[in-house]
C-alpha cells in the first residue's frame, strides 16, 4: 500500500521498563486505505537484521492501551480504532533491546477486512539507527 512511508523515521528506540531495556519499538501506520477495528489485525510480523521475532513477543500499543496480538482479536472498541494515517506503536520484547547502531527492519501487517476474498499482507522495509 504505502510501504515507503509506513515507518515513522524517529520512532525507533529501545523500550525501557524500570530502567531496563526490555525490547525495542517503532511507530507505523496501517497499510490499508481506511482506519480499522483492531480485531481484524491477524498478525504483525517483525524481522530485524534477518531475525524474525515470535508472535508472543509482539505488543501493539495505541492510545495508551497495549495488547498482545491474541488479545487484539476481540478489541472492537471504537475508541481504539487504528485510524488511517495515524501512528500506532509496535513493541517487540527482547531482553536488552537492540544494540546501538544501524539496523534493517522488515515488518508485515496481516489484516482481514471482512469483504476481501483473501487476507491482506503488506510489508515494508526500513533502515534505522538505535542511538
Amino acid at each position, binding site marked *: *500500500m*504505502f*510501504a*515507503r*512511508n509506513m515507518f515513522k523515521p524517529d520512532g525507533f528506540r529501545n523500550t525501557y521498563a524500570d530502567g531496563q531495556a526490555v525490547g525495542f519499538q517503532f511507530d507505523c*501506520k496501517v497499510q490499508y*486505505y*481506511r*482506519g*480499522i*477495528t483492531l*480485531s*481484524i489485525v*491477524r498478525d504483525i510480523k517483525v524481522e530485524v537484521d534477518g531475525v524474525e521475532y515470535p508472535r508472543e513477543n509482539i505488543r501493539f500499543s495505541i492510545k495508551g492501551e497495549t495488547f498482545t496480538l491474541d488479545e487484539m*482479536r*476481540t478489541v*472492537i472498541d*471504537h475508541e481504539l*480504532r487504528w*485510524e*488511517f*494515517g495515524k501512528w500506532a506503536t509496535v513493541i517487540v520484547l527482547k531482553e536488552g533491546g537492540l544494540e546501538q547502531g544501524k539496523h534493517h527492519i522488515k515488518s508485515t501487517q496481516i489484516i*482481514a*477486512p*471482512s*469483504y476481501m*476474498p483473501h487476507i491482506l499482507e503488506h510489508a515494508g522495509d526500513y533502515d534505522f539507527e538505535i542511538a
Partner: protein
Amino acid sequence: MNYNIKRSVSLYSYQEEYYLGKLDLEGCIREAAKAGATGIELLAEQMMPNFPYVTPEFKEQWFGWMDKYGTEPTCYDAFLENKIYDNRTLTLREQVRMMERDIKIAGELGFKTLRTLCSTPMDVIKGSLDCAAKEDVKICIEVHSPFSLNSGWADGYMDMILGTGTKHFGFMPDFGIFCKKIPDVLTAKALRQGASPECVKIVNDAFANRVEKGFTKIKYDTNLGRAHGEYVKANGMPELMEAIEKAGGNAADMNYARASFNYTWCDPQDIIDNIQYIYHTHAKCYNTNAEYEETSIPLKEVIAAYKKAGYTGYLSTEYEGNSLLNDAFEVDSIEQVRRHQEAMRRAIED
C-alpha cells in the same frame, strides 16, 4: 446542449496526501471544490474522526465546510465489517444493526446515497430498507469490476427491487467496468517490478481480445469466490496463465496477467438499460493525462450513455492510481482529480 449531470469527488481520491499528512479532511474538500466538483463523497472510516460516532462538533464543521466550499454531500461509502471477529460471521441482526448505524451516519451528515459492497448479504440489505427509507438514504450496491449490470449477478438484485418495490435500493456503477485498456500505470508498474515486454504484450493482447469479443458476465451466487472463479475461467484466465508460463514468464508477469482480470469492459448501453435504478456513480480513474484523457477508460463514450439515459445524479471521481505509482514516485492526486473533473466536464458539456 446542457445536461443535468453533476460532478462529485470521492475523497478516497486523496488518500495518498491524507495518509502522508499533506491534506486533512477540510483540505480534501477544498481541493475537490477547486477542481470544480459540487458534490463530496466520503469514506467515514477513512477520514471521519471518532468513527462511528458523529460528534456535534464534527457535524457543525462538516456542514460549515459544505457551505464554505459550495458543496453538498453525495455518497457515503460503507464497509460492512461482518467478520469483525475471527471465529464467526456476525449474525443477521448484528449485520443489520451495523448497516443501520452507517445509514444513520449518512443521513445525519446529509448524504443521499450509501455505497454498499457486493459482499453485503441480500438479507442485510432487505433488513435495512426501512431504516434507509426513514433516513431517506438510497442504498446502492457498487457495480464494481468484474461485476456488471445486465448480468445474472445484477438480476439477483433487480428481483429484490421489483419484489419489494423499494425506492431505497439501487445500483452505483464504478467506471472500472468501462476499461477498454489495462491502465498504463499498472503496465508501467509491472515492468518496474520485472515483467517482460513479451509477456506484457501477451496479457494486453488477451485483454484487447476480451474487449473485442465481449466479456462473459458474472453470475449471481451468494458464494462470491465461486462466482469469481467461474468468471475468470470463462474469460480465459487458465489459457492466459498457460501462455505466460510457456513464454517463461516470471512472478511479475504472472501477477500482471492475474491483475488484468480486475478490469472489465461493459457496453455503456448497460447504463441506459438500468438508468431508473442508478442513483450514483463512481467515476473511477487511474491516470488522466495532460490532454484530459483517462488512459484506460473512454470517458466520452461512457458519459454519452449517461447523457442519453438522462442521468441526473452525480459522477464522482474516484482516483485509484496512487497505489500503482507510490512504490517509486510521488503521487499528485490533486492534479489527477483536477484533470479528471475537467475531462468529465468536457464530456458532459460537449
